[in-house]
């Protein structure tokens, strides 16, 4: 609206007001909307700052104590079919969940699948703290162990091969031939056997999402470990001094 029109409307509204003095119904005459940025030109309210600071100090104390050192960046885009960060994440889940699952069920964990979208950050070279675990896994997702039969396993493998994103795996090796066709699958050190069931550790988010999100079709059984993905990362960082992870041959296409 041009400024002239605007002034005219204001003027008419005002004349209307002057002319009539009886109490009448409310009439919406003008609406004005704007976006107000919250930036450093605004002063901070002291009482809010002092309310928050003890909480912040406590969190920082816990999150910023060094748990390990990463000599090099661990990335999410450094390999065509597997990445150092994805491998780190899946290996940690495999290592930390295996004893928990054995203790809870008496069963052996076979492998791990984690979705790419559930790995929310890289780890940069330098000190690694619990804060990194929160950045990598900000959500309250738990580790679930899913039992799959041969047919569901085939669907999972196809999904991993055909997905446009590089999902993370551990305890499993997928080899594609030159043209991208499946050549071999090894699980937990042995060739894939369609006549048995397998136990795969994953994020409960993928289990709750159901078959529509791709990973798990028919599920034989699900075991809830009650173990947060983030806590598995923190537990692992506490045990090690140096965080290293490489792109390797767990998922490759021959050339």
């Amino acid at each position, binding site marked *: 609206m041009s400024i002239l029109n605007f002034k005219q409307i204001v003027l008419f509204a005002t004349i209307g*007001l002057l002319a009539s003095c009886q109490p009448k119904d409310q009439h919406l005459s003008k609406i004005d909307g704007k976006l107000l940025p919250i930036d450093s030109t605004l002063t901070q309210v002291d009482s*809010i700052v002092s309310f928050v600071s003890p909480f912040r100090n406590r969190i920082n104390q816990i999150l910023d104590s060094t748990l390990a050192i990463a000599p090099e960046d661990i990335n999410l885009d450094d390999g065509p079919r597997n990445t150092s960060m994805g491998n780190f994440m899946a290996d940690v889940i495999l290592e930390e969940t295996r004893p928990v699952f054995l203790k809870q069920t008496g069963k052996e964990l076979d492998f791990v699948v984690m979705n790419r979208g559930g790995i929310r950050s890289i780890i940069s070279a330098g000190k690694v703290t619990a804060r990194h675990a929160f950045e990598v896994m900000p959500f309250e997702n738990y580790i679930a162990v899913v039992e799959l039969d041969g047919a569901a396993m085939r669907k999972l493998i196809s999904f991993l091969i055909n997905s446009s994103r590089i999902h993370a795996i551990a305890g499993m090796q997928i080899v594609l031939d030159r043209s991208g066709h499946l050549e071999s699958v090894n699980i937990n050190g042995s060739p894939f056997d369609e006549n048995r069931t397998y136990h795969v550790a994953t994020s409960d988010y993928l289990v*709750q999402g159901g078959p529509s999100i791709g990973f798990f079709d028919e599920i034989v059984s699900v075991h809830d470990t009650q173990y947060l993905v983030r806590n598995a990362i923190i537990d692992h960082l506490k045990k090690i001094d140096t965080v290293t992870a490489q792109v390797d041959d767990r998922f490759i296409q021959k050339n």
Partner: protein
Amino acid sequence: MKRRDFISRTAAASTMVGLTGLGLNSCSSLGDKHITILHTNDVHSHIDPFPSSHGRYANLGGVARRASLVAQIRNENPNTLLFDAGDIFQGTPYFNFYGGELEFKLMSKLKYDAATIGNHDFDNGVDGLLAQIPNGTFDLLSANYDFSNTVLDGFVKPYHIYQLDGIKIGVYGLGIALDGLVTKRLYKETVYLNPFEIALDQERKLKEEENCDLIVCLSHLGYDYENPQRPSDIKLAQSTYHTNLIIGGHTHTFLDKPEVRTNLNGDSVLVNQVGAFGLNLGRVDFYFDAEKKVSGDGVSISV
């Protein structure tokens, strides 16, 4: 916003104030009324400003700054309401460590009037949300989540009416479909109802039974989607009769100014959303005069 527009708008606003003052002086029994609505969405536990090292939002946001801006605006116009359109929780360790306690306490200190429930507000389950309700002095509004078979039954209202300076402002809440977005273990027996049907029912009640002068929807449906089947704020604006303002969330959409759409009565509806993480505060000012007709004709919208 272009700087030139801003200056001319400010000049126009000053003119308005001047003329209104004249109107008030000449007729003391009657005056223009002014309601200010402030809003946030998808704050996601961002309590502190972003650090100076942040790639996109360095030194922006922060609840202590938002508090001073809100206080300043309330000081200028006591007839101000403050709302949030959901996803209060999840995004910083404040939530992971304290489960939303700080978020709710801070919103209470800022005197938020109401909030609706976003999908991430279920991240600690219906029990986790219930646990924070005693820390909040604001209303939790959701008309299309049926909580009857959950622990939240009785703690969430479909709508609330705020009365400021003789103006009745009816506010209802709408939430997004939870299936596929939130794990069932968290939302439990919460039932999602069709937001459009519920909106029509709510606004009819607020307009015809409660005689509200202004109707506001706090929505976590999301701004707009390519899939026309998916409920959105833009679709909602075009599918209702009486809602004046839709304050949205979920899609983290940064709008410089409210979007104006036409409702089923042919009147204008404002749809607004201010991004995420407490980077911005939305402000919509409604001016009322005392004419007989109550239709939306002749409403001057300067956005």
